[in-house]
């Protein structure tokens, strides 16, 4: 649903550096909206290693990606940022009044005084298996996500993969589909055991098929798929009839639309200065893994430092001519009030 917001700051990316930017900007009374393509906060910490320990966060000898995200959200909570998930920022353009217009693929638009690009490795997008000729079927027969379940009603659906996405959609689409086949490279699944059991019950009841193997080729014409050729786990080669294939091979990071915003780039990273972490467009900043400057080290802690310095310049950009008195959270009643601790 189309919605419009006016705000001080839009932060693109809800990873650790994006969330900490909410905190640093919040201390300077700058209100934020945060946009992320994933369905939750954390960025790479949520998608790539939620349960894996990180050992180099200052003062936290060991913390998981999920826990770090939770702690950062808690720290930023007093500043009441609005988070918008499942949204990819598609457009970023400077307006005649000096503000920035930010648009997403989910029909959200924002007018903002500053923008912070905290997009990490870019946007997480579904991995597209390099099956020869697959692009030709992408509009009509191959889907990397389910936007509307109705799309699959009455069709011969082939789902490829063994994780939660593959199993969840198997269970959800089975009642709608004319036929449903789940194809996975082995007879073991990473997905939740409960989903796997339900899938096996459907197979036992003859309501769907489970095949073991990997897709090697596609058959069809005019962009409409008729079958997928599969190499079975036992080496046999067979066809699976399908006119709607859903490959679920996880997500990969792509720079995506960031490249189209007119910012100076260096090897697919956004160039910034090391005083203000501002890009080639004044008012647009970049922090965390997405930025590039001499000596850059891609560590979460570097992004925290960058966010703190970015916030200082963001204040001056939003409040031209106003003096900013530097304050410590330990001693400033003013800051403590903002944090809600006094």
């Amino acid at each position, binding site marked *: 649903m189309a919605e419009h917001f006016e705000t001080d700051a839009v932060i693109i990316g809800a990873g650790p550096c994006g969330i900490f930017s909410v905190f640093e900007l919040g201390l300077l009374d700058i209100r934020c909206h945060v946009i992320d393509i994933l369905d939750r906060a954390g960025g790479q910490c949520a998608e*790539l290693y939620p349960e894996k320990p990180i050992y180099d966060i200052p003062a936290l000898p060991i913390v998981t990606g999920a826990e770090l995200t939770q702690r950062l959200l808690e720290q930023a909570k007093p500043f009441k940022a609005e988070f918008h998930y499942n949204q990819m920022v598609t457009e970023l353009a400077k307006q005649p009044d000096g503000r920035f217009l930010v648009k997403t693929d989910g029909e959200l638009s924002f007018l903002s005084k500053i923008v912070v690009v905290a997009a990490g490795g870019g946007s997480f997008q579904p991995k597209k298996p390099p099956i020869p000729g697959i692009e030709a079927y992408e509009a009509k027969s191959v889907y990397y996500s389910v936007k509307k379940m109705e799309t699959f009603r009455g069709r011969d659906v082939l789902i490829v993969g063994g994780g939660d996405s593959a199993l969840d959609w198997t269970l959800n689409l089975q009642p709608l589909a004319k036929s449903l086949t789940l194809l996975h*490279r*082995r007879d073991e699944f990473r997905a939740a055991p409960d989903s796997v059991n339900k899938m096996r019950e459907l197979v036992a009841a003859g309501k769907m098929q489970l095949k073991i193997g990997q897709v090697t080729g596609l058959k069809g014409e005019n962009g409409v798929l008729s079958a997928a050729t599969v190499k079975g786990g036992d080496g046999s080669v067979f066809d699976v009839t399908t006119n709607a294939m859903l490959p679920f*091979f*996880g997500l990969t990071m792509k720079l995506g639309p960031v490249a189209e915003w007119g910012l100076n780039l260096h090897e697919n990273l956004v160039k910034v200065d090391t005083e203000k972490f501002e890009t080639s467009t004044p008012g647009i900043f970049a922090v965390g893994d997405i930025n590039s400057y001499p000596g850059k080290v891609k560590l979460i802690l570097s992004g925290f430092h960058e966010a703190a310095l970015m916030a200082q310049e963001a204040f001056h950009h939003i409040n031209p001519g106003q003096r900013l008195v530097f304050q410590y959270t330990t001693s400033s009643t003013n800051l403590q009030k903002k944090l809600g601790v006094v």
Partner: protein
Amino acid sequence: MAKITFTQHNGTEIETNGIPGMTVMETAIKNQVPGIDADCGGACACATCHVYVEAEWMDKVGARNPMEEDMLDFAFDVRPESRLSCQIKVSDALDGLRVRVPEKQF
């Protein structure tokens, strides 16, 4: 030092000197071997350092670990000789190791 040879999809061979203790993926990155992306930096979280171990080295390299087996679900064209190179530690026993790089890590 352990000599590790990466054969590209087009047949080009790249010889590297692996340092015992490092992983085969790290060796590839250090030597800028094309086709080893290693998006996650070695956390066994992305399957973009997929290699095929040459038959004669399969025994010495050993079996996949369970986490790696799960991650290989995200790779394309997985074969019995498929491994994630971030999960193979270089050692003197692997001096001469030969692996093939897939056409694409995708």
